């Protein structure tokens, strides 16, 4: 068993797992990173990165056969020819929808760090204090200043393009030059600033795409192809493969084992410590055990909780961390697919070149400062302006050369924005183990019981109306709002189920992301979140992971783990 022992085991290789592996390995620990899916090698395995629509048999549209094979992925963009095989197969890895929950997973090395949206914003003090101030759920055990240096740390390494704005609601960070706004966005931003007296801000997206080359990391700057989701052969956006994995490998301290499904954390009830993990080799079905002094669970929010639920069940029926009564509870996501769009006149003689990986961002302004609404928390907007292409409807033109000529030239400028709103942590929004349903490897699956509540529904009225109000104030024509039916999971920002807190009776993790009942087990992915903010969460997972890794190494050296 000698070669099965490591200083640390990291379960999962996505955004947070990659960070855990890098930080622990750089601090000298011998690290084993376990990934349930196949390996995807940087650049070499980005098989579709150079393809265009005409390179696919169906021009990147899923066939009926693909839709039949993927009843979950077909619900949104994950089902396409270009990303076929990049999203977890719901047939091999099913889950139960007690209520509809769209779960889009990345089961391969790099996880969803390869397909993520890259929007990178810091939580603010407002976010960390909200639960305590409003008496919602439990208080975060940390405040902004606890995480600020770690945001600095991860931004500096990952590379976040953005602008310093001086807004309390969206703290500034260590930014590379921004991805530019176009002429329409700049003018609309200026009009919004004027119309709302500086209380609403349309700013550059903060995105994990580098706008300056980083030869020391082997990464070129963004080439403006807007094909990030296929894997970037330039390494221009942050992923495990482009950034954390090579850094971790360079230390000589990291071992990566793909096809390793972690079944459970092995728990030593006498020492009240985890001693390792048991895995199933996904290819052979064989079981193996690996031991370590410290374990990081970074399997994605729900799967980290799944591992806990399957661990130490001889001590706690509900699994490791269930003594709080909170394991599997307080599921969050962001609710979105609501906003507004319209047409912008006066720029018919302006165009652009290049395809950006992002657009603009409007930080939260509701329930900020003196603003008080009939609901709690708030929302931000992501959006962009561009000229319509050939897919637009041309009402006045029938068929023939006139239609062809019109569609071959750019159409009107349109601008649109989609709101992302905070979902409160409701105790009875849950995931649980369904032992009656098994995956391909005979393991029990998760059942989701999550719903959108009145607070979110009330917020959505503002999410639509405020977007329209801003666009109209900026002189945008034919402004139309839209509001899709909110379905949990669709933002692919699942959070909660093993929250951090100050009290082992009401939280699964302490202020350093340690499981109260097993302090050498850290959970630093979306599972740990005590509230959701309205900003995209991945940057916060990175910062929490780096902070926890630093803590773990110090505790290990002090003999406390």
């Amino acid at each position, binding site marked *: 068993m000698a070669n099965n022992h490591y200083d640390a085991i990291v379960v999962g290789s996505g955004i947070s797992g990659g960070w855990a592996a890098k930080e622990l390995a750089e601090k000298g620990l011998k690290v084993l990173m376990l990934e349930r899916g196949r390996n995807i090698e940087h650049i070499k395995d980005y098989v579709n990165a150079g393809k*265009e629509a005409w390179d696919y048999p169906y021009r990147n549209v899923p066939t009926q056969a693909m839709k039949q094979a993927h009843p979950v992925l077909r619900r949104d963009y994950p089902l396409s020819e270009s990303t076929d095989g990049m999203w977890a197969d719901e047939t091999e890895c099913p889950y139960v929808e007690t209520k509809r929950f769209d779960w889009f997973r990345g089961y391969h090395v790099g996880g969803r760090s390869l397909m993520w949206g890259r929007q990178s914003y810091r939580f603010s003090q407002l976010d960390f204090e909200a639960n305590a101030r409003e008496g919602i759920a439990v208080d975060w055990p940390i405040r902004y200043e606890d995480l600020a240096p770690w945001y600095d740390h991860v931004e500096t390494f990952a590379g976040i393009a953005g602008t310093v704005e001086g807004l309390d609601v969206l703290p500034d960070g260590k930014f590379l030059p921004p991805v*530019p706004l176009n002429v329409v966005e700049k003018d609309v931003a200026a009009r919004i600033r004027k119309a709302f007296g500086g209380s609403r801000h349309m700013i550059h997206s903060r995105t994990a795409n580098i706008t300056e080359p980083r030869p020391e990391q082997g990464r070129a700057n963004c080439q403006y192809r807007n094909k990030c989701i296929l894997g970037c052969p330039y390494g221009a956006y942050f992923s495990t493969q482009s950034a954390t994995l090579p850094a971790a490998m360079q230390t000589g301290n990291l071992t990566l084992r793909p096809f390793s499904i972690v079944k459970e954390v092995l728990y030593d009830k006498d020492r009240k410590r985890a001693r390792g993990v048991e895995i199933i080799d996904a290819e052979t079905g064989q079981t193996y055990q690996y031991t370590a002094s410290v374990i990081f669970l970074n399997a994605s929010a729900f799967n980290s909780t799944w591992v806990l639920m399957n661990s130490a069940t001889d001590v706690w029926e509900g699994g490791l961390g269930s003594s709080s009564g909170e394991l599997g509870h307080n599921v969050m996501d962001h609710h979105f697919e609501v906003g507004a769009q319209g047409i912008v006149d006066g720029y018919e003689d302006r165009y*652009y070149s*290049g395809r950006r990986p992002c657009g603009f961002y409007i930080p939260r302004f509701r329930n900020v400062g003196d603003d008080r609404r009939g609901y709690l928390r708030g929302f931000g907007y992501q959006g962009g302006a561009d000229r319509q292409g*050939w897919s637009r*409807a041309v*009402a006045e033109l029938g068929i023939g*050369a006139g239609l062809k000529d019109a569609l071959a*030239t750019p159409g009107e400028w349109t601008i649109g924005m989609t709101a992302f709103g905070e979902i409160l942590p409701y105790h009875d929004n849950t995931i649980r183990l369904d032992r009656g349903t098994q995956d391909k490897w005979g393991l029990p699956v998760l059942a989701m019981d999550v719903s959108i509540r009145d607070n979110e529904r009330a917020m959505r009225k503002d999410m639509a109306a405020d977007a329209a109000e801003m666009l109209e104030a900026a002189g945008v024509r034919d402004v*139309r709002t839209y509001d899709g039916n909110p379905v949990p999971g669709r933002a692919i920002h699942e959070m909660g189920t093993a929250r951090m807190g100050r009290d082992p009776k009401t939280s699964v993790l302490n202020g350093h992301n340690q499981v109260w009942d097993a302090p050498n087990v850290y959970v630093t992915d979306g599972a740990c979140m005590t509230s959701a903010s309205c900003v995209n969460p991945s940057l916060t997972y990175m910062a929490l992971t780096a902070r926890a890794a630093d803590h773990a190494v110090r505790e290990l050296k002090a003999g406390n783990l």
Partner: protein
Amino acid sequence: MDRRELLKMIASATGVAMVGMPAFVLAQAPVAQAAAGFTAEEVALLDEIAEAIIPRTDTPGAKDADVGAFMARFVTDCYSPEDRAAFRAGLVDLDQRAGGSFMVLPAADRLQLLTGLDRTAREQARDAWVAADGAGSGVHWFTMIKQLAIFSFFTSKLGATEVLRYDPVPGHYDGDLPYEPGTPAWATR
């Protein structure tokens, strides 16, 4: 704006969500796939219809881009059986309206027939969407053909690179460039 207004807005622009695209089929249950290939004659017919919609001018047209063959493949494998049946019935209807065979009509008569169908299809789309509050598809078969011909052409390599402008690796973003009227749009976003 409520859903009804949004649908009216879409209808008034004559656009309907493209048949076969994911957003359109989101709510449909998966259905069994029936074999439904197109014959060479049918592909030739699709080529001619598509060429009338997107003709060769000083730049390549639908036939140059083999649009008919792609349309046949797309309808066979990406359309639902119901949509595929409606599409096929449309081709039969077209031949009937042409007095037996669309293919034997002179070019001017073809254009006249298709132009009339296009007008009817646009009116029907508008009426059906408003009446059904978007629940019924109300898509005229000619709308299916037209939108698929446009999609097939502008996503083809020829359409994208010789009719539109294509740059595989822009390398930078410039958000404020002068635009000269009539010059091509970018092929990809």
